């Protein structure tokens, strides 16, 4: 019947890639886990194994070239939902989209939400993800009450801040290397409605931006900014802040558009991006707008275009997310200058100030400071050189880069950003590894 919604399709083996589609990797096998009870018989042989969620990591942290991927996405059952207290226990393959579909009608929301709903609970824990409310809520892992971890020795252990606490700390932000998370129990937050009262304000310099952040952090749960990185001169962009609103009627979420094939590379040349940024910036007619918005377009604007990563064409793209401490503002300005003068950046540039709430994971990326995330279409060596330069600046400033979005940092950079990696490697499952892990620990002895 023509009225049916478009069916969504299954993954073929070749589809087990990462979101940036760099590097290309081929697993020797994919084991899909449909039932928690199947894990007891999971046969990994002697290959290195790695859990895989929905592949929304950009680089190679969710890839295992030549090894086995354990696809946990069919594990999407709820186990218990305390409607009164907002405590949800669910299998690790449940996507945040599926979770919200169940939770929002009952007045509950994710305590921390990334920029897409298409990530699994397991993936959210394994990268200890952050959201627009980091200054108020910290990372996702802070709201995890407990989870169960399956290890290749066949053991199944419950972990919480008081039970197997070290494994709990290592697994949050542990990039899938400590075992398979089978279920997760999280504390949701209550919301008065599915809508947010949102304000969007133009800024024309980094100082203006910082002033907006400090004026907003106490009264606004969510803040995030979009920055135009294609212009030389002062940093300009749009600052957004929002809180869930009581009452009101949201607009109905639209069916997602989709990019059905890879776009040719000219679609993203620098003048096209420049034009796009110019348009976005000027589309907002007034200095500030204020309106009621449904949570989906506010939190997940990119989900409105399915497979948007295809706009970068076959060669894929790099995403680079770094942070520097607050006292390294000068370094941050220098990095911005470097990016805009290189003219390689694209339109998806997100700026956010992390608060001082400590991350619970041993390897978690978020710490207090300024963080910027941006895409770079893959232009081969030129792009890699630029990112190496940025790494040097980030390192000098005492910052770090987010592994979930990385496909290229050197072992030296990684080990400087995460000196605790040796301690972490004591907790990894001896049979687990990833393309990322092999790359960033190459040549080192743990």
């Amino acid at each position, binding site marked *: 019947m*023509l009225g049916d919604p478009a069916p969504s399709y299954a*993954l*073929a*083996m070749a589809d087990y890639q990462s979101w940036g589609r760099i590097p290309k990797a081929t697993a020797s096998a994919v084991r*899909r886990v449909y*039932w928690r009870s199947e894990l007891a018989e999971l046969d990994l042989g002697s290959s290195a194994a790695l859990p895989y969620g929905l592949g929304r990591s950009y680089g190679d942290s969710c890839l295992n070239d030549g090894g086995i991927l354990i696809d946990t996405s069919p594990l999407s*059952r709820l*186990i218990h939902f305390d409607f009164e207290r907002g405590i949800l226990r669910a299998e690790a393959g449940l996507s945040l989209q599926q979770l919200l579909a169940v939770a929002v009608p009952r007045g509950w929301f994710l305590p921390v939400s990334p920029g897409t709903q298409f990530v699994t609970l397991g993936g959210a824990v394994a990268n200890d993800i952050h959201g627009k409310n980091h200054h108020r809520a910290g990372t996702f892992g802070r709201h995890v009450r407990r989870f169960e971890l399956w290890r290749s020795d066949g053991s199944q252990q419950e972990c919480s801040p008081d039970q197997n606490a070290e494994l709990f700390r290592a697994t949050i932000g542990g990039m899938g290397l400590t075992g398979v998370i089978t279920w997760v129990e999280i504390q949701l937050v209550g919301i008065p409605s599915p809508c947010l009262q949102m304000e969007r304000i133009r800024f024309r310099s980094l100082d203006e931006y910082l002033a907006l952040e400090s004026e907003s952090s106490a009264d606004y749960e969510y803040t995030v900014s979009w920055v135009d990185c294609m212009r030389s001169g002062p940093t300009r962009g749009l600052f957004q802040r929002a809180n869930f609103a009581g009452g009101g009627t949201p607009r109905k979420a639209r069916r997602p558009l989709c990019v059905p094939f890879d776009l040719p590379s000219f679609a993203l040349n620098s003048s096209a991006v420049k034009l796009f940024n110019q348009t976005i910036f000027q589309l907002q007619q007034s200095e500030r707008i204020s309106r009621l918005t449904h949570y989906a377009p506010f939190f997940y604007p990119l989900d409105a275009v399915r497979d948007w990563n295809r706009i970068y064409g076959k060669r894929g793209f790099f995403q680079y997310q770094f942070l520097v401490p607050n006292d390294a503002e000068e370094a941050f300005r220098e990095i911005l200058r470097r990016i805009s003068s290189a003219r390689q950046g694209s339109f998806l540039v997100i700026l956010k100030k992390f608060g001082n709430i400590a991350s619970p994971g041993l390897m978690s990326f978020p710490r207090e400071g300024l963080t910027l995330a941006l895409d770079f279409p893959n232009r081969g060596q030129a792009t890699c050189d630029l990112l190496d330069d940025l790494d040097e600046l980030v390192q000098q400033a005492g910052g770090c880069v987010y592994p979930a979005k990385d496909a290229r940092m050197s072992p030296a950079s990684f080990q400087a950003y995460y000196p605790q990696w040796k301690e972490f490697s004591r907790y990894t499952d001896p049979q687990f590894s990833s393309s990322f892990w092999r790359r960033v620990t190459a040549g080192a002895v743990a």
Partner: protein
Amino acid sequence: MKRILITGATSAIAQETARLFAADGAALLLVGRDSDKLAAVADDLRARGAEKVETEIVDLIDLARCSRLIDEAVEKLGGLDALLVAQGTLPDQAECEADPLKTLFEFSLNAMGPITLLLRGAAYFENRRSGCLAVITSIAGVRGRKTNYIYGSAKATVSTFLEGLRGRLCGTGVSVVDIRPGFVDTPMTAHLPKQALFATPESVGARIYRAMIAGDDVVYTPWFWRWIALVLQLIPRRIFVKLSI
């Protein structure tokens, strides 16, 4: 639709349909053969808002047991509004060809069990002059293909049976829904290489939910399989036997 019996309730497709009924606050009796899996499905449906979820561990090759399930559901749920038959196996064709008893076993599971349930269900709903009988058959039942005719003919048996039953129940207010999915990415097809035509269990499960509520009769899902079925039916026999599909 408040009270629903699902047989083969651990099926990936049936779970998706059940989730939608659970969100509506339905009461469900889930029948399957594996207690761990059944418990996991039951927990899921409770947490999604089902008013009541009962489980029953049954090997559905047992036809005598199949014939009692409608009564059990009526008793446990305090009545019944719909039956969804989802169990099925995709047997190894070569093994079946070499072993008639295995063929009959598979035939029994895929056709005789469903027919047993349908006859009991039809009697119950006909009396009440309302209800919904739904079975997941398959696109494979549309023609006998040499690569898959044992599974296909069992499904075709059920489809033909449903067509007749629909005639019998016409005007009684009972709907008879024949769901014919194409390739769906589930444990049943885990061993097959995935190509572009594979749909997800979510989309197929949601289509079944809508078809049961609307009381549709024959449903191809995803929708384009209707046209593929039509083309298959139009291929002349002399050519069809030579095709390696």
